[in-house]
């Protein structure tokens, strides 16, 4: 039997970062197929290739055994592929019914849109899903779960041959997930192929017949679900050598620097408590959406929180106030350095000295000389590779940009460094340099809290691994006991250790 839809040998790179290398997938009619892998394994990129958002650099997409090229999402749709994306993609100004049928509105005479038919069909779809959303209300103001349900209704409205669901259940409650699965099973039994991406293994095992595991953009294995166990799948997801790239220097942890107690922000994280000592690197691991970055941002004061408190050296930080956090010696290196960490158009030296512009100025005026000297010193220490320190940051590679962000905060001599995804999108060589810097900082007595989705980095760098799952801290694993399996099991909610 030919697969309805297949990928063979697909490569895809974004700049220097290879997202997919020789990715493979075969979907047959009447099967629900699970795609699992760690964060960054390339699942979402694969979905976007199936959906026609990206074209593959190499390899082929086969529809009914014949190669096809999807130039845009419209082509994939026309081929009968419906996709529910991880992030809802709704039009806030338009009605729910229009959102579902945009571009495919039912028509009556003279090509006019048949609004009544559109509304009726929307109501039917919602009835099938068992939800009550008014088809005429605008999508603006819908809760995340409702938005996801509208997306699902949209995908159902296609009568698709292939239904791709990229973590559709993240925002849904148990009842809604059950309904979605009932509908998905009905579609499957009618001969549709379903590709289901989820980190929730109970759902994978409840819905799917076959599982494909991806790691580092590569296809690893495809197998019948009956031959697999949760533990086996997890082992395959993470199974790789922890490279020796991470030179964590041995330190003797000093007194507690950062204390987080009962930190809660409704809808993001609940009751998060932990401490970080001077000289310690503590990793915050977990899946995307577990609330790790949100905790990091709350500690620094960029985001507010509803309850709990953050103390640095025993002194309480005022919530939602980054300047007091900076004054207390906290530095945050954000996840998205292009948007949040750097002013891309400014020069390296301007960026590197931004948080200290007052300290470097005399009589309120900023003279070039002091900026230049300070930046040159840090650029040297971090080995930033750039032609001139007056070049715009946007001309640098990702790794060197990250070094500028580090220089910017390190020059403030922080006592607590919160760093979110320190090496995302950075080549291997620079990664090691960033790790060396972090290790060196810890050796100097800085308390480092590192949010990271890369398990090798977490295991290689951290003195302790904290694991978050769905907004809660579920595990606190010391360096000696942490391995890929127990971190991953905790991150997917399979294991609850004492936090």
């Amino acid at each position, binding site marked *: 039997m030919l697969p309805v839809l297949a990928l063979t040998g697909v490569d895809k790179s974004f700049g220097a970062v290879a997202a997919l290398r020789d990715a493979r997938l075969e979907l047959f009619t009447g099967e629900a197929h699970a795609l699992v892998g760690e964060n960054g394994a390339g699942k979402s990129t694969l979905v976007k290739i199936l959906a026609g958002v990206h074209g593959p650099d190499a390899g082929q997409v086969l529809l009914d055994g014949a190669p096809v090229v999807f130039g845009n*999402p*419209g082509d994939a749709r026309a081929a009968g592929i419906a996709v529910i994306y991880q992030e809802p993609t709704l039009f806030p100004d338009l009605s729910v019914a229009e959102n579902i049928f945009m571009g495919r509105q039912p028509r009556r005479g003279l090509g*006019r849109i048949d609004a009544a038919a559109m509304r009726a069909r929307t109501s039917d779809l919602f009835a099938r899903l068992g939800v*009550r959303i008014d088809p005429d209300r605008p999508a603006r103001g*819908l809760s995340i779960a409702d938005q996801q349900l509208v997306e699902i209704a949209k995908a159902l409205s296609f009568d698709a041959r292939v239904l791709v669901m990229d973590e559709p259940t993240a925002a849904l409650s148990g009842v809604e997930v059950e309904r979605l699965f009932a509908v998905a099973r009905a579609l499957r039994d009618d001969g549709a192929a379903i590709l289901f991406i989820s980190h929730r293994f109970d759902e994978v095992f409840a819905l799917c017949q076959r599982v494909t595991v991806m790691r580092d953009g590569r296809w690893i294995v495809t197998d019948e679900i009956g031959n697999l166990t949760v533990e086996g799948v997890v082992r395959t997801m993470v199974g790789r050598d922890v490279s020796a790239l991470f030179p964590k220097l041995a330190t003797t942890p000093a007194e507690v620097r950062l204390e987080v107690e009962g930190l809660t922000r409704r809808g993001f994280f609940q009751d998060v408590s932990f401490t970080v000592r001077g000289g310690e690197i503590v990793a915050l691991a977990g899946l995307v959406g577990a609330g790790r970055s949100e905790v990091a941002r709350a500690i620094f004061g960029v985001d507010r929180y509803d309850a709990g408190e953050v103390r640095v050296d025993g002194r309480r930080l005022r919530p939602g106030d980054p300047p007091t956090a900076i004054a207390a010696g906290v530095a945050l290196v954000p996840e998205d350095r292009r948007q949040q960490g750097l002013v891309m158009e400014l020069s390296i030296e301007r960026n590197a000295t931004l948080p200290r512009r007052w300290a470097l100025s005399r009589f309120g005026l900023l003279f070039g000389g002091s900026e230049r000297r300070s930046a040159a010193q840090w650029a040297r220490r971090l080995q930033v590779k750039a032609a001139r320190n007056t070049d715009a940051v946007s001309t640098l590679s990702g790794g060197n940009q990250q070094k500028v962000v580090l220089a910017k905060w390190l020059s403030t001599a922080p006592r607590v460094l919160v760093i979110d995804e320190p090496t995302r999108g950075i080549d291997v060589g620079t990664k090691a340099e960033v790790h060396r810097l972090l290790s060196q900082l810890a050796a100097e007595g800085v308390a480092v809290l590192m949010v990271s989705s890369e398990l090798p980095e977490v295991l290689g760098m951290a003195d302790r691994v904290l694991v978050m799952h769905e907004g809660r801290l579920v595990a606190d694993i010391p360096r000696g006991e942490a391995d890929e399996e127990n971190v991953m099991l905790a991150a997917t909610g399979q294991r609850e250790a004492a936090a």
Partner: protein
Amino acid sequence: MTAPDVRRRAVGPGGRAPTGESGARLVHRLFVVRELGILLALVLLVGVTFAVNQRFLSAQNVKDLLLGSTILAILAVGQAIVIITRNVDLSVGSILGLSAFATGVLFVDNPGVPIPVAILVGTALGAACGAVNGGLIAAARVPALVVTLGTLYVFRGLDHTWATGRQINAADMPPAFLRMGTATVAGVPVLALVAVAVLVVAGYLLKHYRSGRELYAIGSDPDAARLSGIAVGRRVFFAFLASGALAGLAGVLYAARFGTVDANAGLGLELNVVAAVVVGGVAIFGGSGSVYGAALGAVLLTTIGSALPVLGVTPFWQRAAVGALILAAIGLDRALAVRMARRLRGGTTRGT
């Protein structure tokens, strides 16, 4: 995670949520309210001015008001189509100037040219200019603000180069063409009827056709529109084509109405047009509003222009009044949006 599930009660097939209708009514009412607000402001303005000076509503003055609104209203319809897609067309004043001058030259060079041909030529010239805008924006992926700021100067420059200081006078144009500028049917100027026809057609296309709804989708969320398989580049191109064509048509009507055309026709008009569209309730970031609102905005701005002198307001204050109106319109939109968001959150989601 499980606690809210208990409260979420599902409705069986066919069971309509009782909250369904109220949401629909709310949205419908809001649509009506937004255009109604401008209409009310217009009625109020006319009423007060009439109370001060009865001659304000004389047949002649009403005719002048309608004539005065016509060109701005046609431009506003085109601009609304563009702004709905989260773009802006700043070159409409220059396109109008170019088209008006071309119409004059056409009559000078070919005295026997039939009027419909002149209208077609002017509109086609405008459409060509719009195609340049749309093509640059779609192909080069440069923001419309920058592209049309550039073509604003380019088109005006072409106009100046072509005119070389020349002026085309009423005597150069056929009397029948000039009569079109002042003729009336049952007391309503023909030009105003043209504007109404443009408005009705544009409004109908935007509301009842897929291509029209896709313009709203693009303005509401361009990325989502792309993911929905909408040909964003092509639709935006056609929006600029429409705006250019309408500016071209407005140029022909300008020539017919004023009879005298030089290279400065329509200079600086683009900001009036954007003001009319914004006052008319079209969101500057796209996705919502209607051409009816934009046209009403144009009528309101024109009426203010002639009502304020009657009310004894010095001309110096007129611009400030227009500015205040824009701020009031934006404030009203904001207030409505906040109120709607609160209501939508409060009542019409699933549950309980």
